[in-house]
């Protein structure tokens, strides 16, 4: 409770209240999170319940358009799924994949960065060289190729069951170098501090020093970068799903919904693609703005 009170009195919350951009972004993100978490409870229909779908309802326009139906506020897709419910579940899937991918990238990046920064020498040179080479390739290209290689390498049935984890792995592995570089930089600074020397003198193992002494002190900046990367990871997932190498249409993320809607653009059913598109763009924009604000608020020197 005391920590909470201190937060609301502190500088960070003050600068948050003073920034309308941050407040609005936080609201948008909060709405997305609530819709995603509570989707099974608050969505008007269950888009995965095949029994409730009726082709009679397919491609209904939004409620305010001519042939709209009040029961489906922003219309339905080609299979008669309620679009609002599908978007809620889609947001849920997009967010979960993005968050898991960043968590995976963080754990790889932090491990590599700590080892490279603390060990130094040849280990450092080799690890950072790998990171540099990977950084010259755009992350979406790496995610696409990793996904493609796994798709070819894993047996078909196994891949279908593991699709979610394959996506998390492909998107995460494309983003670790940035985290590794940041952690390595801060580790190099911390390594020379007295508390690390003291820990070395009393004979703690390098592993112990890295995990319980250096890690807590280098975590701040990398977590800020992780916020900024979350938006990008969600976009990566949407792009892969749009290209048709993401999740199957039975489990649509926002990217899959946009891909499905794209087929109906020419016949005038614009809502099937536009509403998921707006949701995706608003969510990513809000996360990016919030990440920018957080970076400036926590450390003015970081820029």
């Amino acid at each position, binding site marked *: 409770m005391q920590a909470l009170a201190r937060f609301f009195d502190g500088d960070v919350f003050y600068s948050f209240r003073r920034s309308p951009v941050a407040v609005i972004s936080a609201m948008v993100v909060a709405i997305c999170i609530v819709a995603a978490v509570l989707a099974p409870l608050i969505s008007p229909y269950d888009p995965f319940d095949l029994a409730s779908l009726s082709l009679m309802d397919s491609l209904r326009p939004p409620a305010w358009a001519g042939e709209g139906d009040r029961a489906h506020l922003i219309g339905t897709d080609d299979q008669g799924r309620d679009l609002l419910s599908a978007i809620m579940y889609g947001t849920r899937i997009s967010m979960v994949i993005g968050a898991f991918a960043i968590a995976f990238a963080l754990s790889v990046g932090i491990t590599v960065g700590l080892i490279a920064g603390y060990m130094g020498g040849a280990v450092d040179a080799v690890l950072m060289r790998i990171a540099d080479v990977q950084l010259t390739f755009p992350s979406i*290209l790496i995610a696409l190729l990793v996904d493609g290689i796994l798709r070819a390498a894993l047996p078909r049935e196994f891949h279908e069951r593991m699709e979610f984890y394959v996506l998390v792995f492909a998107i995460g592995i494309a983003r670790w170098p940035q985290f590794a570089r940041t952690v390595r930089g801060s580790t190099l600074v911390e390594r020379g501090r007295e508390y690390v020397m003291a820990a070395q003198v009393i004979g703690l193992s390098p592993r112990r020093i890295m995990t319980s002494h250096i890690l807590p002190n280098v975590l701040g900046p990398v977590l800020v970068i992780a916020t900024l990367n979350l938006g990008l990871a969600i976009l990566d997932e949407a792009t892969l799903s*749009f290209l048709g190498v993401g999740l199957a249409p039975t489990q649509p993320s926002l990217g899959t919904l946009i891909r499905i809607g794209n087929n109906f653009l020419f016949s005038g059913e614009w809502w099937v693609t536009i509403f998921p598109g707006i949701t995706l763009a608003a969510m990513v924009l809000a996360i990016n703005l919030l990440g920018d604000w957080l970076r400036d608020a926590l450390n003015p020197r970081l820029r």
Partner: protein
Amino acid sequence: MFAFILARILQAVPVLLTVAAIAFALFAYVGDPVAQMLGQDFTVEQRTAMIHALGLDQPIWVQYGRFIWAAVHGEFGLSFRLAKPVGTLILERMPATMELAFCAALLALVVGVPMGVYTGIKRNGGLARLFMILSLIGVSLPTFLIGILLILVFAVLLGWLPSFGRGTLVTIGTWSTGLLTISGLKALVLPAITLGLFQMTLIMRLVRAEMLEVLRSDYIKFARARGLSERAINFGHALKNTLVPVITVVGLQLGGLLAFSIVTETVFQWPGMGLLLVQSIAVADIPVMSTYLLLISVMFVTINLIVDLLYYAVDPRLRINRRSLTGGR
């Protein structure tokens, strides 16, 4: 200078060999080419003979050496999906991707630089602020969504421009170009905008930031004191000095253009290398995937090398501490 180029080329070799090893591993361990070539009925002797004929009984490093040798000579095997040599397939589609990427880059430069200069000079003007807000939206919209919105407005609602394909093509030698016919040019407009928009906002923001920096410097104040015209100061003195970082970013973004052309080509069904890759990944067409992997790494390594050299040529200060440049990358 020569030592610098040589060092950069030598650094690229292990990168390319690693990528080649991944591409080779795809060929060697994913799927069973012998089973595919023999079909349903075969004897053990036939299988052994086939394995011997293909050289698959040799040590792995001999096979790797042969793979690289073939790749250097442009032999990449047959596509599983289209049963054509992969080298020919990719060569056929290269002009489409190159023309698209080139036009997108050109568009980004021609529009992005003046907008950057304008927003830099008129920092607090209404139009400048509008540009900045639009650029923020441009950065946050995913490429495929921009493409879909453009199609919806200009192809479906207004019907001004085509939404897929390359239009009528003219073939010059082995290069098929869409730049010489009206329908080809029309077909290029929407994809080029889609692909170039992100780079455009990036260049605009970069030029703006650099302009703000340069306009504060002493030699600009001195130029003002000499009574030079605003035009001469802004374009002759200030803009020239903002171009070094712009060259670097544009060069490095060429790689990004190639990567995002995959998305743009899928949206507009543009028959380039990116669309070929996406179609191949969906059906696990390994020869096409591993060839693309090799090709794109060679392109990236070359682009990085050229950017480094340009940087070196444009900014004389770098010639003094070139050790930090080669060590830093």
